[in-house]
């Protein structure tokens, strides 16, 4: 009977109920989007770092991977020392550099990685072969488009450019052996991967036996933190960062997003709460006489409160359900805009729907709907019956 009465009471002012429900839906959608924003980048960054199985990144001491131009010297010896660390299964050296593809109407500048094709984790080959030969290069679609090149073409590539003399250094003729998608870069980035030896040779003495970083795989039964500490002990001139540490570092840098998301999420929750409170209060005030009569004929105070709280729950639930749809849709739209930001890896998402977090957030909204109904209904159910009926009769 209480459910029936609550449903009829909401239906009684259908347009008001619908507007309130839409208001709660907007509030729920915003809350949901903020929850998705608060966790989206962190989770997709973690997923990106874990995707190729490397658990530790090793960079020059005091730096983060590709945070500076610094490189690790005596790279071969460092790699040997790391391979000797118990639990380490693979060590993948990476040397980053800028390359210039010459012989086109305009030189095309791109980012290149010197890698060991046998253990690399920087790209997925889409077509062709890995750059196992010293004169091979794989390129991103963006670079191939810019250089008007295809697999099998020979490119004139340099790694150095003197802007005063306008001369290029470290030139090599390399054959495009494959087409690849680069894990840590966006689809629009012009990028290439060559064998580490080729990049080091093209760079001359400055690059000989040097790398920008190592990516390290550990055995599944090994704690990466222990291996990380062992690597830093074995090679004191490096900083080793586990995936968990990298995520923690990213968390620090993304704290703006989390704070913004937390504040806006809290505002959404308060707005939703106030909306339901307002609607329930207005509804209760309109029905003070009815509530008094229910009390007079023997309906308990608790049952009056329950009936009105059910109305609050129904509003919140319907709003939360609509908000879920609206929130996912808007998050998808906003994500597509933000992912267009230059330089972001394709795998990074700003908004990530995680059902447990979403359910917790929407559950909080429904709980606030329950709280919103309790006070006005309890107040109305506690008014003196005789006085209320007399005032209603006069009114």
């Amino acid at each position, binding site marked *: 009977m209480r459910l029936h009465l609550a449903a009829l009471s909401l239906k009684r002012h259908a347009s008001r109920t619908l507007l309130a429900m839409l208001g709660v839906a907007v509030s729920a959608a915003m809350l949901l989007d903020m929850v998705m924003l608060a966790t989206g980048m962190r989770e997709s960054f973690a997923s990106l770092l874990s995707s190729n199985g490397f658990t530790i990144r090793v960079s020059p001491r005091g730096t983060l991977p590709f945070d500076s131009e610094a490189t690790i010297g005596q790279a071969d010896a460092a790699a040997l020392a790391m391979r000797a660390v118990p639990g380490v299964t693979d060590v993948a050296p990476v040397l980053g550099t800028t390359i210039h593809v010459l012989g086109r109407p305009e030189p095309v500048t791109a980012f290149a990685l010197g890698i060991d094709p046998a253990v690399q984790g920087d790209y997925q080959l889409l077509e062709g072969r890995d750059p196992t030969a010293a004169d091979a290069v794989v390129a991103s679609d963006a670079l191939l488009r810019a250089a008007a090149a295809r697999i099998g073409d020979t490119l004139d590539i340099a790694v150095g450019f003197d802007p005063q003399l306008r001369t290029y250094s470290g030139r090599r003729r390399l054959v495009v052996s494959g087409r690849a998608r680069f894990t840590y870069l966006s689809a629009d980035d012009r990028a290439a991967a060559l064998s580490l030896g080729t990049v080091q040779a093209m760079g001359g003495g400055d690059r000989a036996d040097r790398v920008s970083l190592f990516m390290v795989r550990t055995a599944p039964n090994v704690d990466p933190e222990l291996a990380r500490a062992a690597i830093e002990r074995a090679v004191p001139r490096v900083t080793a960062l586990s995936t968990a540490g990298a995520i923690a570092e990213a968390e620090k840098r993304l704290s703006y997003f989390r704070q913004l998301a937390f504040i806006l999420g809290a505002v959404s929750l308060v707005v939703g709460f106030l909306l339901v409170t307002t609607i329930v209060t207005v509804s209760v005030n309109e029905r003070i006489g*009815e509530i008094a009569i229910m009390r007079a004929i023997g309906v308990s105070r608790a049952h009056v409160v329950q009936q009105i709280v059910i109305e609050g729950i129904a509003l919140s639930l319907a709003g939360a359900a609509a908000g879920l749809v609206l929130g996912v849709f808007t998050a998808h739209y906003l994500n597509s805009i933000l992912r267009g930001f230059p330089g972001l890896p394709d795998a990074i998402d700003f908004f990530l729907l995680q059902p447990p977090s979403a359910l917790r957030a929407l559950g909080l909204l429904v709980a606030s709907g329950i709280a919103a109904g309790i006070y006005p209904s309890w107040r109305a159910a506690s008014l003196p019956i005789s006085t209320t009926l007399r005032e209603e009769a006069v009114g």
Partner: protein
Amino acid sequence: MTATPLLSVRDAERDYPHSGEPVHAVRGVSLEIARGEYIAIVGPSGCGKSTLLNLLGAIDRPTSGTVTIAGTAVSGLPDREATRFRLENIGFVFQRFYLLPVLTARENVELPMAEAKIAAAERRSRALELLGYVGLAEREDHRPSELSGGEQQRVAIARALANRPAVLLADEPTGELDARTGADVIALFDRLNRDGMTIVVVTHDEKLAGAARRVVHMLDGRVVRDEPLLRRA
């Protein structure tokens, strides 16, 4: 009065605070009502008759004195127990009917039974029986807005009878009705009383007061006259 009275009021007083000063709505009223009686409480506006009815119905408490209904001192009951007592023992009829507008006539009658946790099938059957008793069986699915004033008041009477109360209390039940529909309600009360229902009405309506078997006159919060009426056969 030879038997134990169904309702008993002893030295009841009810004061209301108003602008810092107490208003004495009921002043030292004592009254006994036997089972099966039909009483009208009459008097000018503001004389305390509705306040006395509220005390009799346990929706208000006396400032001092006691109210006992069917052996229970209702004036001392905490809210939860007083509510339960009203549900099971008292039927209320109000001047403005106060039916829930979203419910049909039958659902309005079922409401007190639902609160008393009576099974749905029994509620429905009893509601239809009561609507039949007040002559509205064919109007069970109508909402209050689709009923005339007289019909709404008869639904309100059916609702008041839902849990087979010991007493029916009515506050100006014909106050919002025209003469013809008011007469229908008076006839219904008469029939109810003949069927054994104890009825207490507060009224300005001379015809309704004239239909009662006993008339209690109030003035300034006091009972000034309590007289039995000669009854037709």
